[in-house]
């Protein structure tokens, strides 16, 4: 049966009447390249997907239209997929910590930072109005000591807790 379509373009190409269900042999298409996209100078390149291409030059050419078309971009990298080395999913357990080490995760530092900010604010509230120039050195000295004590104390608790 001949394919009829409402789209004139489809009718124009006169597709063959019989579909032979031919199987495409493996690697019939070009090899793949991994594409990395940089949004602004100085940013890290982020992996955004793959393109098929016969060589790096063509990979960059295609990557531009596939991945830089819908968002801001200043630079693209392409790397042959075959050149990427990966760990095995069979070894995925190496990433599971034996004990809770969430304090090592980046948000643990954010918590500590917030506590420091909170402490600084409290200290500001507690201290009297703008100190005169003569008393600055003395004030700073005494407050530094207090802050040291409190920060150490507080962060100690956090680490202990987590």
């Amino acid at each position, binding site marked *: 049966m001949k394919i009829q379509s409402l789209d004139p373009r489809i009718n124009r190409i006169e597709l063959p009447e019989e579909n032979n269900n031919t199987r495409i042999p493996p690697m019939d298409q070009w090899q793949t390249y991994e594409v990395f996209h940089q949004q602004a100078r100085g940013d890290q390149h982020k992996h955004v997907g793959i393109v098929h291409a016969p060589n790096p030059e063509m990979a960059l*050419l*295609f990557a531009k239209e596939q991945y830089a078309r819908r968002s801001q971009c200043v630079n693209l990298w392409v790397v042959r997929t075959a050149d990427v080395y990966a760990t095995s999913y069979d070894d995925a357990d190496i990433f599971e910590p034996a004990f809770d080490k969430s304090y090592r995760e980046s948000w643990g530092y954010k918590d500590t930072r917030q506590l420091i900010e909170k402490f600084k604010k409290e200290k500001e509230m507690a201290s009297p109005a703008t100190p005169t120039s003569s008393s600055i050195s003395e004030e700073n000295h005494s407050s530094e000591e207090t802050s040291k004590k409190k920060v150490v104390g507080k962060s100690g608790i956090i680490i202990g807790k987590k």
Partner: protein
Amino acid sequence: MQNLEALKNLLYRLADDFLIMGHRDSEWIGLGPILEEDIAFASMAQDKVGYSLSFYTLLHELGEADPDTIAFKREAIHFKCAQFVEMPIQDYAFSLIRHFFFDYAADTRIQALKNSSYDKLRDLANKISRELKYHCMHAKTMVTQIAKGNEDGNSRLQEAVNTAFPMALSLFEPTEFCEELAQAGICPTEASLQKEWLQRITPLLIEASLSLPQVPEPNPYYGGRKGYHTDYLDELIQEMTAVIRLEPEAVW
């Protein structure tokens, strides 16, 4: 405003070339040789339709009808595009070579318009040239890679060059306004643009082991700039306006 008629003629030529070329190239959507090239080719076709809108808008500001009316409600005889852009897409080799010839020609003209004495044209040229740089890069890379790849690729592209080159020269068909536009500093003459275009593409074709054929005199593809078109343009316009003709007054 001085040189108004000449300026409008130039804008119609630019806009109609981009609209018809964009429409033709868009016929490859979903049918391109591989997925990535299909997307790239369609994206560049869409860019070109976009340029035509910006030139039609400029014409509208100069007193012509609104862009939709100009684009969709004109008879073929009123189009100022070159016959080159209205030819059917044929096989991919032809479309690719046409893309190569057309985009280098468009880029050569747009680069020149960056120095136009007409400020609005200058501003548009500055914007458009950024994208055309990629269009040329794409055309050059694809043509070079395929032509140097193997005998089959080279002979198919050479055949396409033989067919397309005489047609491509219709992009630089002289018009009655050429001298006036050049003297007013709006746009260089067609002859000088053609010369510059040839200087750009010749080394690229040599690098790709492709050669330019002899062109019959007078060029049989001239006439588009004066409204003489092939039947292919009318077919294209019928297809392009199929939806708007169903309900011409519909609001989108």
